[in-house]
């Protein structure tokens, strides 16, 4: 566990968990913006935009950290992923650009447009598509279909990513992000109507998440067999599954009892455990079945410098991020949101 290649992979996974918990929830906010209907829709959209506004750019950077760590520590794996998953990654990029730019334009004009308008629609649709394709990428690298034994080549086979298991991981990512957003948004408002709406959405997305977890597991058994064996055969498999089920049950119970800060902690644990489980099952592979963290690792000196830079960066950044959250999310963190 303490060799530099594994540690670098752990750093990537940690960035991805943080990206899911923070950046993912921002995408989820866009999904609820898209689904907002009826008389309260304008208020919901304004609440979502206000919650995302100060933090989304910071949250987005976790993805950049994951990518630069990947291409510095495992350059060969990055090259293979970028070649075989050219199409879904390009869709993800388009989604990231459209979501981010549209949100910035939208926030810029929010006062006049009352939360609606063209940019809002682009922001919301991009928030729906991007997580699905991001999830597909993760499903594809676990499915065992990307072959990288020989020199870099492009097969042009869409089946590499467009098959049942990766697609189901895509929807699992979407459901996770929407679920996190709904649970977080409960704490961003005191308005009883808005709260009840997000509570309903939390239950709905929790149900979707549970359903997709079971479906994805089932599909893995037929469509990603090595990954499935690894996921179910580890010494950690049963404790992890138990923790996942406990977190899900805890989240639903807290939502039912209207204990929202607790629900948020359980929901975040639930999504983190999903990703950690994926990481454990994937290890030591980066891209199943041909590339492992050891076969793709850069030189030990590069890895040591990279880990040093990540540690120093984290030491400087975590206080800054805490300060950012302290300034803008304190009411939400402490569970006593401001009146709108």
């Amino acid at each position, binding site marked *: 566990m303490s060799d530099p290649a594994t540690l670098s992979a752990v750093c990537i996974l940690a960035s991805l968990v943080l990206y899911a918990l923070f950046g993912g929830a921002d995408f989820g906010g866009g999904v609820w913006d898209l689904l907002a209907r009826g008389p309260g829709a304008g208020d919901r959209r304004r609440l979502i935009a206000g919650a995302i506004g100060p933090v989304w750019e910071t949250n987005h*950077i976790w993805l*950049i950290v994951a990518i630069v760590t990947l*291409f510095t520590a495992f350059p060969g794996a*990055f*090259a293979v992923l970028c070649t075989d998953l*050219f199409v879904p990654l390009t869709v993800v990029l*388009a989604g990231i650009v459209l979501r981010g730019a549209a949100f910035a*334009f939208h926030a810029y004009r929010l006062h006049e447009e009352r939360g609606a308008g063209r940019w809002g629609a682009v922001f919301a649709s991009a928030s729906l598509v991007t997580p699905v394709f991001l999830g597909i990428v993760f499903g594809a690298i676990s499915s065992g279909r990307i072959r990288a034994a020989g020199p870099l080549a492009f097969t042009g086979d869409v089946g590499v990513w467009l098959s049942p298991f990766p697609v189901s991981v895509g929807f699992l990512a979407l459901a996770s992000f929407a679920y996190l957003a709904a649970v977080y948004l409960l704490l961003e408002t005191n308005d009883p109507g808005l709260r009840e709406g997000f509570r309903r959405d939390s239950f709905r997305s929790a149900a979707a998440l549970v359903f997709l977890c079971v479906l994805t597991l089932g599909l893995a058994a037929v469509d990603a067999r090595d990954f499935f064996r690894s996921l179910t055969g580890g010494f950690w498999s049963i404790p992890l599954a138990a923790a996942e089920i406990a977190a899900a049950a805890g989240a639903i119970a807290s939502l039912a009892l209207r204990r929202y800060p607790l629900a948020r902690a359980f929901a975040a644990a639930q999504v983190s455990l999903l990703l950690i489980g994926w990481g454990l099952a994937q290890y030591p592979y980066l891209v199943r079945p041909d590339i492992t963290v050891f076969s793709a690792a850069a030189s030990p000196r*590069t890895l040591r410098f990279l880990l040093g830079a990540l540690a120093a960066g984290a030491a400087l*950044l975590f206080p800054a991020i805490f300060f950012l959250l302290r300034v803008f999310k304190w009411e939400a963190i402490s569970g006593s949101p401001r009146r709108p």
Partner: protein
Amino acid sequence: MTELALARAQMAMLFAFHILFAVAGMGMPVLMVIAERGHLRTGHPVYAELARRWAKGTSVLFAVGAVSGTVLSFELGLLWPRFMAFAGGVIGLPFALEGFAFFAEAIFLGIYLYGWDRVSPRLHLASGVLVAVGGILSGIFVVTANAWMNSPAGFALADGVPVDVSPLAAMCNPASLTETIHMTLAAFAASGFAVAGIHAILLRRDRENLFHRKALEIALLVGGIAAVLQPLSGDFNARFVARNQPVKLAALEGQFETERGAPLRIGGIPDVASRTTRYAIEVPKGLSLLAFHDPDARVQGLSAFPRDEWPDPLPVHLAFQVMVAGGTALAFLSLAAAWRIRKKRERLFDRRFLAAVAICGPVGLLCVEAGWGVTEMGRQPWVIRGVMRTADAATPVGGLLLPFAFFSILYLCLGVASVWLLRREVAASPFFSDGADAAPSPVSGEME
């Protein structure tokens, strides 16, 4: 177009777009911090309004810069996977450091933009300073990676694979210092003059408005200092290139034959077929003097190198001429501004001078694009000079016309939308007079 040409065209388009926003991300925070500092020092509301409005503009530019930068970090692998497979482990470190600098920029920009009423004025100003520092550092880290492509260091080659890698030596390669200084100054000059140009246009209509007067002064201060220093940095760069990348120097000067006492060519069109540069104004011995500080120094021409290692001298030479001409114009304009302020401050707002500033507004950005073109096209046919050819780095994926067309249209829309949003903001110019009781203006407020 071949797939290689399409990959290069797409990368060039993505960079040409991103670099404008990256430059704004480096320069704009400095302007807004100076304005806010003015407010803390004098208490005059015009500075606070200026800081607010510049910050609001920065928020849009920064967001587009952030997402277009994300695109680039993926496209490095999507379009050039073999380059990344080779270079990632060598030159990935500055990208990781850039990620953290960028993090700092985003965190403190969030606090700056949305925190006017939530943190103390000092803390707010400090956040602005950290935005500026983060922006400048992230620019510097990324440029060291480009410097490494021009001047690879920090590894040895064994069977086409980098061994004995030293990421620190790669990051601190010989070209890093000259390139990062040149780019940082360019960012300040370009954003300073772009902002000065906009406010000069508005001042021509609304000459007494203190808002635009202060804006012009601050923008000219930042842009002007950078523009005056830039020719010095350019000289360092040119001399470095002359020693380190002689074939690039030959291309950017349109020098085909090796000669002592080579002339400096102003303008002119290099013609590869006849191996001459036509229609140039030639300053005798000028190139030898500038590149080696010796009028009789020997300058290698393109002919001294194998034909398949030449960059195309036509676009390289033309882009270089544009950059040098524009940079010179900005330096002279800055000196003129300094002279006018020394004589009488009011002369800065003279209609003719304002017209000159307005015309020079886009020149800095044009120079940035031209300069980027010089360094990239001048390195061809290599992606890593002497190590890997661009053609060998490209993706095996075909059908690149589709993503190229898609991202071109997408970026065109984003560019138009950003300009349109900023235009509205600029057009609604608030009025301030010189008195302490400034006329009330529709304060835009923070974006909550």
